[in-house]
C-alpha cells in the first residue's frame, strides 16, 4: 500500500518536472513539451491503474493552484482553457497506454509501449481534446480536428521516445517497469 501511494505521488511529480523542461517549437509554431510524454510514461511504466492515478493526482493538484502544467499554467483556469479536453483525457490516456503495455506481454516491450502510447496518448486523448477545443473555441468537431492535427507530429515523436525510454528502463531494471512485472 505504501509503495503504491509513494510511486503514484512521485510519478505525478515527474510529470510536473517534465512540463518544466524547455519546450521545443514545431515548424507550425506550436510548442511541444515533454509533459504529455510524462503522461504516456506513467501508463507504460506504472501500468494502467497506478499510471492513471498518478495523472489524476497531478491534475487535481494543478487545479488546486500549483502552476505545473507546461508553460506554467495552473489553477481553475485550466478547465476553461482550450486544452481542457486534453487535461480531462490525460488519466484515461495513461490508463489505456498502461493497459495495452500490460496486455501485450508476448510482444517486445518497445512495440507494446509504442502501441500503448499511440492509442492511449494520441487516439484516446484526442477524442476529449477535440471535443473540448470545439466547445471552448466555438468550432465544429471537424474544424477542431484540423487544429488538433498541429499537435500530431510532436505527439508521434513523443510516443516513439516514450517507447524507447520504457524499453531502456526495462533493460536496466525490469522489476521497476511495473506494467510488465
Amino acid at each position, binding site marked *: 500500500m505504501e509503495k503504491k501511494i509513494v510511486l503514484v505521488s512521485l510519478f505525478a511529480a515527474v510529470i510536473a518536472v517534465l512540463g518544466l523542461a524547455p519546450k521545443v517549437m514545431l515548424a507550425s509554431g506550436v510548442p511541444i513539451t515533454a509533459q504529455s510524454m510524462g503522461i504516456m510514461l506513467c501508463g507504460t511504466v506504472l501500468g494502467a491503474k497506478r499510471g492513471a492515478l498518478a495523472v489524476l493526482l497531478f491534475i487535481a493538484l494543478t487545479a488546486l493552484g500549483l502552476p505545473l502544467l507546461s508553460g506554467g499554467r495552473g489553477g481553475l483556469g485550466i478547465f*476553461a482553457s482550450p486544452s481542457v479536453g486534453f487535461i480531462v483525457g490525460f488519466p484515461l490516456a495513461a490508463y489505456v497506454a498502461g493497459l495495452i503495455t500490460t496486455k501485450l506481454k508476448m510482444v517486445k516491450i518497445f512495440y507494446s509501449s509504442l502501441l500503448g502510447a499511440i492509442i492511449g496518448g494520441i487516439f484516446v486523448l484526442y477524442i476529449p481534446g477535440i471535443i473540448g477545443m470545439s466547445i471552448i473555441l466555438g468550432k465544429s468537431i471537424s474544424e477542431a480536428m484540423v487544429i488538433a492535427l498541429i499537435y500530431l507530429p510532436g505527439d508521434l515523436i513523443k510516443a516513439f521516445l516514450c517507447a524507447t525510454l520504457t524499453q531502456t528502463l526495462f533493460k536496466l531494471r525490469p522489476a521497476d517497469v511495473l506494467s510488465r512485472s
Partner: protein
Amino acid sequence: MLALRFPKHTWLEKIPASIKLVLLATATSGIFFVETLGIMLPLFLTTIAFQFLLGWQIFKFSLGLLKPLLPFIAIIVVWHLYSGDLGYGALIILRLLLIVTLANIVTCSTKTSEISEIIEKIISPMRLINIDTQAISLSILIFIRFTPIVIERQKILQLAYRCRSGKRPSWQIIVPLILSVMDDADHVAQSLKSRSTFRE
C-alpha cells in the same frame, strides 16, 4: 514557493474559498450564455478594471498568466480572418480570456490548503464506498513535498550531462531521473511502512 498566488495580499483572500468557488462556477456557467459582443465586452472590461483596481503589480501578474492562451488566440484570429466572421471570433476570444481571468483571480487569491480542505470535505463520502481518503491526503502531501526535490534532481542531472558532453540535455536525462525516483520511492515507502498505520 510552488503555489500560484498574487504577488501582493488583497482583500479577496479574506473571502472564504467556498464562496469564491460557488461564485466562479455561477459566473463561468453564465458567461457561456452570453452571445453578443455588446454584453461580453463590458463584462470583460469590468473584470480587467477590477484587476487594475487591485493594484498595478497584480494587474501585470494577471496579464502574464494569460500568455499561454496566445497560440489559441492566434489560431482563432487567423481562422476568423479567413472565414470573415470577425465578430464571432472576438466573442470567442473575449469569453476565453474572461473565464480564464476569473478562474485565475480565485486561484491566486486562495491558499492551496483552503482549497484542499474543501476537496477533502467533498471526497469524504467516498469512505462509504471503501475508498481510502487517508491515502489520497497522503499522496497530496508527498506530491507537494517531493516536486521541488524532483525538480532539483533534474537540475543536477542536467548539469552532470552538460559537464560530460558539453551539450544541452533533453530526453537523455529522463531515464536516470525515473530510476532515481524509483529509488526514492523505495526509501520513502520503507520509512512510511515503519511509521504508518496503513493496513494491507
